[in-house]
């Protein structure tokens, strides 16, 4: 299984019936492919849609039915649309159960940096700061390292997205929880040892005596 599939399948296990969920661009979008059979989840696109469905079949795209990346989507039965003030009221106002975002760095205490690399990439934060600050639960979907360098670090060298710590980071190697300012190894990927995870992590990692393997 490739890293992206491991991450997306594991995060899908965090879904519960009836949740309102916002998925970011990239690996997070893949989570929608692994919703457990028969479970109804509401997916929000922050451009103003709840009930976001899979991309339409060839030739069925509508110019005014898109996701937050501007790509054509479908609307599932029961979908609703609204303006951007409502959309961010949902996000900041404690109505969004779960957001899944990509990450550049996560520090020891769970602070996420994912919106800019000074001097290199300044795309703008879009909705990321509101999502991390406002969602009830924040899960980061990212590869464990970038070109061999750990992305879970002692301290972020990039500007953070929010001071609110994320709840969970899921990588192709591990599931790591951030509680009370501490990073704890919850699960390892199949065939990966806690020592391998620790070696690829710069942040101080609390490792319980027994670490279960991810179920995918």
């Amino acid at each position, binding site marked *: 299984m490739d890293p992206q599939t491991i991450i997306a399948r594991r995060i899908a296990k965090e879904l519960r019936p009836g949740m309102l969920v916002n998925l970011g661009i990239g690996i997070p979008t893949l989570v929608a492919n692994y919703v457990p059979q028969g479970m109804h989840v509401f997916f929000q696109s922050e*451009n103003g849609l709840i009930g976001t469905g899979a991309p339409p079949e060839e030739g069925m795209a509508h110019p005014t039915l898109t996701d937050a990346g501007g790509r054509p989507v479908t609307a599932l039965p029961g979908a609703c649309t609204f303006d951007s003030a409502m959309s961010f009221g949902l996000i900041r106002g404690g109505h969004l159960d779960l957001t899944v975002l990509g990450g550049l760095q996560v520090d020891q205490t769970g602070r996420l940096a994912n919106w800019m690399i000074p001097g290199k990439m300044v795309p*703008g934060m879009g909705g990321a700061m509101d999502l991390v600050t406002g969602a009830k639960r924040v899960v980061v979907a990212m590869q464990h390292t970038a070109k061999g360098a750990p992305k879970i670090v002692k301290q972020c060298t990039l500007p953070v997205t929010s001071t609110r710590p994320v709840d969970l980071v899921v990588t192709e190697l591990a599931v790591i929880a951030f509680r009370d300012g501490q990073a704890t190894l919850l699960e390892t990927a199949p065939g990966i040892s806690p020592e391998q995870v620790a070696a690829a992590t710069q942040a101080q990692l609390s490792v319980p005596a027994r670490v279960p393997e991810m179920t995918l």
Partner: protein
Amino acid sequence: MRTLTLDQAVEMIPEGASLMIGGFMGVGTPERVVDEIVRQTKRDLTVIANDTAAPGRGIGKLVDAKLLRKAIVSHIGLNPETQRQMISGALEVELVPQGTLIERIRAGGHGLGGILTQTGIGTPVEDGKQRIEVDGTSYLLEVALRADFALVQAFLADYLGNLSYALTARNFNPVMAMAAGTVIASADNIVPVGVLAPDHVVTPAPVVDYLVANA
């Protein structure tokens, strides 16, 4: 509300004007109005919008034509030309979190001086802003935004100027329609009064100053 031809509507916009332009990655942007601004070469504009779309699309066309002096937006990641002009210094870009941007516009249109939000605290967004504590929680004071013109795109407009929107093309449009000195609406379809049921009107006719006639 008055109905104007496309060129008349855009002739009202002076060079150096501030414009709120609806749309999200070009979806729900008044493309005909944008094309006419390019044709009439209105320079030195300040644009307030969610994003600058992409080259050749929506607000991206104004960037391509180098008509912008300043952009107040949440995202430019899908428009390399905006980033290029920003880095070269030709275009000033103020990046605002999306939820803060829409609330600043809403405040501007609803008679409020600003809003308090936790978004941006402890990040570069906080620079130069006041923190206000309410019941033990810290918030940033984010001030209201208004513009000289709002350029909005509706799905249906009736002859009075009542507007309704389609699917994800609604986004910033109805909020901006409240927050500018002059509101210019264009619509996919102009329909007789009565076609839009009262419950389906999102932007009430009295806030719309001008409707752009069909070609």
